[in-house]
């Protein structure tokens, strides 16, 4: 099956089976490697992308179910919020290995887009689907605060 996918503002054609997860379509067919594989069962958030601004786990989303505009870590900097989040992540040097961070940044950008001044509880709720095996949680929280112009505690 050929699917038309709008990824980061560009339309791509992907000829894959309907049950192929969006993650593998992006990575192996379209060569968009930012979204990562960590678990394949919606447990870790490494594969998080936006569809029409909503964060989804691309590892469990069949390509046939995707209708909206897809944004990945490669394209998230095009929005003002995404750019701010990337800047905060850089300034505080959140990453250790960095493998989870594309997913963290996608979740954080979605959070700040809908909730520009999240509380700690809001951050916990929005970010607890994203595992960081290196446990950079202290800095993830601080970077979200910074990107939202709040005190970093």
């Amino acid at each position, binding site marked *: 099956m050929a699917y038309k996918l709008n990824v980061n503002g560009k339309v791509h054609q992907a000829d*894959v089976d309907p049950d192929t997860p969006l993650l593998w379509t992006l990575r192996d067919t379209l060569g968009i*490697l930012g979204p*990562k594989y960590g678990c394949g069962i919606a447990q870790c958030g490494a594969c998080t992308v936006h569809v029409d601004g909503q964060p989804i786990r691309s590892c469990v989303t069949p390509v046939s179910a995707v209708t909206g505009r897809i944004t990945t870590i490669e394209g998230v900097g095009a929005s003002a919020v995404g750019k701010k989040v990337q800047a905060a992540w850089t300034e505080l*040097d959140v990453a250790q290995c960095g493998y*989870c961070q594309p997913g963290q940044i996608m979740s954080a950008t979605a959070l700040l887009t809908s909730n520009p001044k999240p509380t700690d509880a809001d951050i916990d709720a929005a970010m607890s689907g994203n595992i*960081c*095996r290196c446990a950079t949680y202290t800095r993830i929280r601080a970077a979200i605060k910074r990107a939202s112009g709040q005190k970093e505690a």
Partner: protein
Amino acid sequence: MTRELTGASRREFLTAASASGLVISFAVASKAEAQAGGLSRINAYVQVAPDGWVTITNKNPEIGQGIKTMLPMLIAEELDIPWEKVRIDQADSDPAVYGRQFAGGSMATPLHWEDHRRVGAVARAMLIQAAAQAWNCPAGECTTTAGVVLHKASNRKATYASLATQCAGITPPDPKTLPLKDPRDYKIIGQAKVQYDTPKIVTGQPLFGIDVVRPGMLFAAYEKAPVFGARVASADLAAAQKVKGVRKAFVVEGDPKAVQPQPGQIGGGLLPGVAVVADTWWAAKKGRDQLRTSWQEHPTSAQSSAAFAAKARELSTAKPQRTPRNDGDVDAALKSAAKTVEAAYAYPFISHATLEPQNCTAEWKDGKLEIWAPTQNPEPGRQLCAKTLGIKPEDITIHMTRCGGGFGRRLANDYMVEAAWIAREAGAPVKLLWTREDDMRHDIYRPGGFHYFRGGLDAAGNLVAFHDHFVSFGEGTGFAPSAGMGPTEYPARFVPNFRIDVSTMPLGVPTGPLRAPGSNALAFVFQSFIDEMAHAAGADPLAFQLKLLGDKPTVGEAPALYGAGRMAGVLKAVGEMSGWANRSKLPKGEGMGVACYYSHLGYFAEVCHVAVAADGAVKVKKVWVAADVGRQIINPHGAMNQVQGSVLDGLSEALHQKITIENGAAVEGNFDSYPLMRINEAPPVEVKWVITDNNPTGLGEPALPPAIPALTNAIFAATGKRIRSLPIDPAMLKT
């Protein structure tokens, strides 16, 4: 990802091994070679471009410990260049040029603190020499600042970029003869530097093993037996091959014995299995799902965690198999003690669970093998591939990608040899990727273990007797990998009557180093039991720890030297910063615990503050860390990240992690059954560097071990219930 000078670089440098065994390579290339690509290479680590940018090579694998930034900082400091003009290049595996290249044991700082500064100093001296020759003045009259050589007397200056082309003709000075900077003049060391790859990480650029793409590359999935080392009995290869996109499915005979490491290796080799190669990884996985593989019977298929626990109990009361330490007379001292305590401790197998599952890309061309691997330990991988595939080690090129976590898992290279084998069979470049379930069920696990303690106090509350019957895994007189304990495990040498007995059980499950190997389990049991003794003595646990350390600054000799004075220093510091003295004011259900531990040359004391709810739920409110890793924190940014991450990693192990062995195989396969700490559970971690006049040491590991007993000791303070088995069971804490 590939370096311009890979492979060929071996021939371009003379290697000078210093007395300490550290290697510094210097250019002796012809001018043409040294100036390939418009860049002037001054030595194996330093290249200067005509526009003034300096490229510094990082020799070691980057696994998230920040080494790719930290090692070049050492070179850049003594080279005397602005950090803003530094580019960093990742070396391939090439021990002839770089010496041993690995990420393990928190060793990069102690190994390279000195030699990497000297690499920079040598390059700087050569640039000065080039200027002095051009100006016809003594080199000793020249100075440098920010990438420029100055001759004050004649008011001349020249940029490194303009001088670098002249360095090819200059003999490098003996690095040992060069003076190094006064730390007060440091401009880079001690400054918080953002990781070099951070801009790429936050924009999702391909950096990791899983991101490698080669022209014509195929994708592979590899299925191995749940019971480690079992052979394939049958597999429906035809069904797999029918799946769209699948190119090939085949059985790999492998070596059933490759569960255990060969000499020089960590982790196993090529185990039997079935490979499916396809146009995409998803197709390979779908093909694999059709295999319905059955496996042959295997001698370890009856092993289980429950049986290990039962056997350990039985062994604990039997005569020990050996007694590696026996000071004084423990039995007599226990008999005459004013008070005695007995306790049985246990910890489970746990998995590394690097967030990037094991993977590797391999390509064959003209009998030569090229590999792109997220590995912590490339050279043993080369040897493993050479031996398994029957090729020469020099016909293998290994490129090291950034690793999505390491924690010791990637010291093994099982995934590398699998990729190499499958690529040769497939006749195409192949990226092998393990599923999360493959990764969790084919780990080299942190081994479980059992400790049966007895302790005795005299009338004054001094710890006078200490006995551990350690029941672990192994055969004969050896321990299974990372399942051992040395005879100087603290508080050995601090208690007059001290005995360690050991008994072991055979194990079919592969084990290996996990971040702070040994220590990550031993700190929990020893520091918990010391806390038990403190409470039995009616003492303040922190004061009890200080008393136990005594007043000698050091005990024993290197490599078994224990800096008791340094440990006392961090204990006092953590007591102050945490408000330990006021802990009695905490509300009901809350408590503070303290623990300390020496590992990887670092001294760490930590206090944990917990709240335990009526339903037994444990909330860690804060952790304080006092750390003594010597006189200099090289990159405070990275250092802090390592310590905070290590502490949370330890808490995550204590709160959640457990691999259950049943029927000879690991039960848990993914993060639904093997949870890791998430952000909602992560407390703030406050860190204080206790600066002492010792050489700087590493931070990848030593903050982890004491975090676990600090937590469990805090739970005791909050609830009066002693955690003697991990992970913590909230049901046990219900009130």
